[in-house]
C-alpha cells in the first residue's frame, strides 16, 4: 500500500542541519492498523507527513499503491491526497467559519463530479458513523474536544480514503474521550481502511496491529 525506501529528511535552518529521518525503510500493508511511537522530536510526525504527501523527503522513494510519487506535480499530489488519503490531526484543525456539516464535506468540495446533494448526503452519513448528526448545524466552537475530533474523523472518512493518517488523534483529549476515539478508529480499520497513527500513548498503541518505534529518525 505504502512503501518507503531509504527515506531521509533533513531540515536546514541557516547553518544548522537536523536529520529528522535517517534511511527509513517501511512498508504499510493494506488493512493494517499501524502505530508509530517514539519520544518527542524523534521524527514520527515527519514520517507521517511524508507518508501523507504533505511534505517531501530530502531523498528516498515513496510508492503509494505502486506509484512513485516523487516526480508528481503539486496538482497531482493534491488530487492523490484528496482521493486516497484522509487526515486526523491532534488539534482537529476544523475551520471555525464553517458549520460541522460544511467542515465534514470539505474533501468532497475538491473532488470533481460530486453534486451538492451527494456531498450533503455523504456528510450526514459520515456524521452518523461518529454519532454527531444532531450537531451538524453547530459550529466547532460549540463542540467539546472529543466531539471535534469525531467531526475530524468524519471529515477524514467522507472521501472513503484507502489510508487514514492520524497524528496523535487523542493527544488533546482526556482518557475517556481518547478511548472513544481509539474504539472508533478500530471500527474504521475493521471496515477495511488502513490506518497509520502516531501516538505517545502505549495504551492507545496497544489497540493497533503493529507498533513501530522510532528514535532519532531511525526505526528501531
Amino acid at each position, binding site marked *: 500500500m505504502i512503501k518507503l525506501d531509504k527515506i531521509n529528511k533533513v531540515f536546514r535552518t541557516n547553518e544548522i542541519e537536523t536529520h529528522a529521518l535517517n534511511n527509513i525503510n517501511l512498508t504499510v500493508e493494506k488493512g493494517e492498523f499501524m502505530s508509530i511511537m517514539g519520544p518527542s522530536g524523534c521524527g514520527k*510526525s*515527519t514520517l507521517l*507527513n511524508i507518508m*501523507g504527501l*504533505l*511534505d517531501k523527503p530530502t531523498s528516498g522513494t515513496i510508492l503509494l499503491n505502486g506509484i512513485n510519487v516523487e516526480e508528481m506535480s*503539486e*496538482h497531482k499530489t*493534491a*488530487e492523490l*491526497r*484528496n*482521493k486516497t488519503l484522509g*487526515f486526523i*490531526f491532534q*488539534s482537529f*484543525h476544523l*475551520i*471555525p*467559519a*464553517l458549520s460541522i456539516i*460544511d467542515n465534514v464535506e*470539505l*474533501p468532497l*468540495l*475538491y*473532488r470533481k463530479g460530486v453534486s*451538492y446533494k451527494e456531498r450533503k448526503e455523504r456528510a450526514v452519513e459520515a456524521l452518523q458513523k461518529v454519532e454527531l448528526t444532531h450537531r451538524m448545524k453547530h459550529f466547532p466552537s460549540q463542540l467539546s474536544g472529543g466531539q471535534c475530533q469525531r467531526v475530524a474523523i468524519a*471529515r477524514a472518512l467522507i*472521501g472513503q480514503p484507502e489510508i487514514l493518517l492520524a497524528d496523535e488523534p487523542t493527544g488533546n483529549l482526556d482518557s475517556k474521550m481518547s478511548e472513544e476515539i481509539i474504539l472508533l478508529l478500530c471500527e474504521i480499520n475493521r471496515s477495511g481502511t488502513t490506518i497509520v497513527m502516531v501516538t505517545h500513548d502505549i495504551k492507545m498503541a496497544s489497540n493497533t496491529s503493529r507498533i513501530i518505534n522510532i528514535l532519532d529518525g531511525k526505526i528501531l
Partner: protein
Amino acid sequence: MKHFFITAYYNIAKDKSYTCLCLFGTTITFIFIALALQLMHICSGDYPPMTNANSIIRLDMFKNTDGKNIGGIYYKEANAFTKNLPDFKHISLYHSNAINALAKEQLHNTDIGFVNEEYWNIYNYKFLYGKPFFKEDCINRKQVAVMTEKLSKTYFNKSNGLGEKFSFQGKEYEVIGVVKNVSMFSTPTESVIWVPYVFDKFIPNGMYKYTLDVLTPPSIPINAAKEKIAVAVQQYFNTKNMKVDFFPKQIKTLKETSENNIPGGKMFQYGSTAALLMLLIIPALNILTLNSTNANNRAKEIAVRRAFGAKPFSSFILIAGENFLITATGAITGVLCAVPVMNVLRKNIVGNSAFMDLEIIDHIDYNVILCGALPALIVFSLLSGGLPAYLITKRNIPTVLKE
C-alpha cells in the same frame, strides 16, 4: 461558491477593524483614482465642449517682427476679416468682460462672453434647456443669453432658467438656453454666460478687439489651413502697414496649445500616468501589509484545505477573492464618492477664485472610470490581496499546521 461566500462572509465579519481599514483605504484611493482618471480625460483635449480642439485655430494677440505687441483683430473689422477666409465656414468672434449682473434683485460679478452665433457651431456645449442664439438674433439685436446650469442656479435658484431675465450695462436679457457645466480644464474661455457680440461695449477692459476661433473644415488638411490663415492675418496687418510675425509654423490648434500650456507638455500625460500608478501602488502596499497579517491568520485554514486536496490555485482564489470583495466594494464606494468629494474640494480650493463659476470636474464619465478604474482595481487587488494569498499557498503544510 456557497462555501466561498460563507467563509468570506465569516472572515470579513470576524475582523471588522481589518475590513473597515481595507474598505476605507480602498475608498480613499479610488476617489483619487477616479478624479485623476477623469482629469486626465478632460485634459486630453477631446472633452466637451472642446471636441473640435484639434481643428480650431485661435487668433488673439499678435506681435510684429520686432517682438512688440500689435494687438488683435479690431472689432469693427472682424466681420470683414472673416471674408478673407472664404474656405472657413465657422469663425467665431469672442470678447469677454467682467460685469455686474442684476438677477432677482441681487448683483453677481460674472465673466460674460460676447460671441457671435458661430461660437455654438464650433464648441459643443450640451444644451440642457432651450437653444443657442442664431445669426438673426444678432442682426436683430435680440437681448438674449445662454448660461451654464450652475450660473442659472446662482442667478435664479433653479437649473432651468429659461425665460428668466437679468440685466447689466442698462440692458435686460432673457435666458434662452442653459448648457451643461464645463470643467475649467476643458473650456475655450472663462465665461459661463454668453450674449450676442453686438451688445459689447468693450467696457470696462477697453480692449477693442475680438478673439477669433477658426474651425478648419475636414476637407482642408490642417497644415494647408494654417497657411491660409497665416496669409489672411498677414494681409490684414499689411493693410495697416504693420509687419506681423505670424507664420504657419507658429500656428497651433487649441489642442496643441493646451498641450503646450500644461506644465511639462506631453510629459504631463506620462507624468499623470506615473502619478496614477503611484496613487495605486502606495495604498496597495499599505493594504498589502494588512492583508499579509490577515492571510497569515488564515494560513492554517488554507493548509487544512490543501491537506484535504485543495489545489494551490483554489486556495489562492479563496484568499485573493475575499480581498477582491473588499477592494471592489471600496472601489465602487470611492468612485461614487468622487463627485461629492470633488465638490467639497472645489468649494474650499477655488471657491473664491476667478474660476468660481467653473467646475474642476463637471461630472464623472463612468465609461472612462470603467475603462480605467476596473483595470486599476484588478491591479490593486492583485497587488494587495493576491501577493499574500500566493505566499500563503506556497507555505509548507506541516509547518503551518504545527504553528
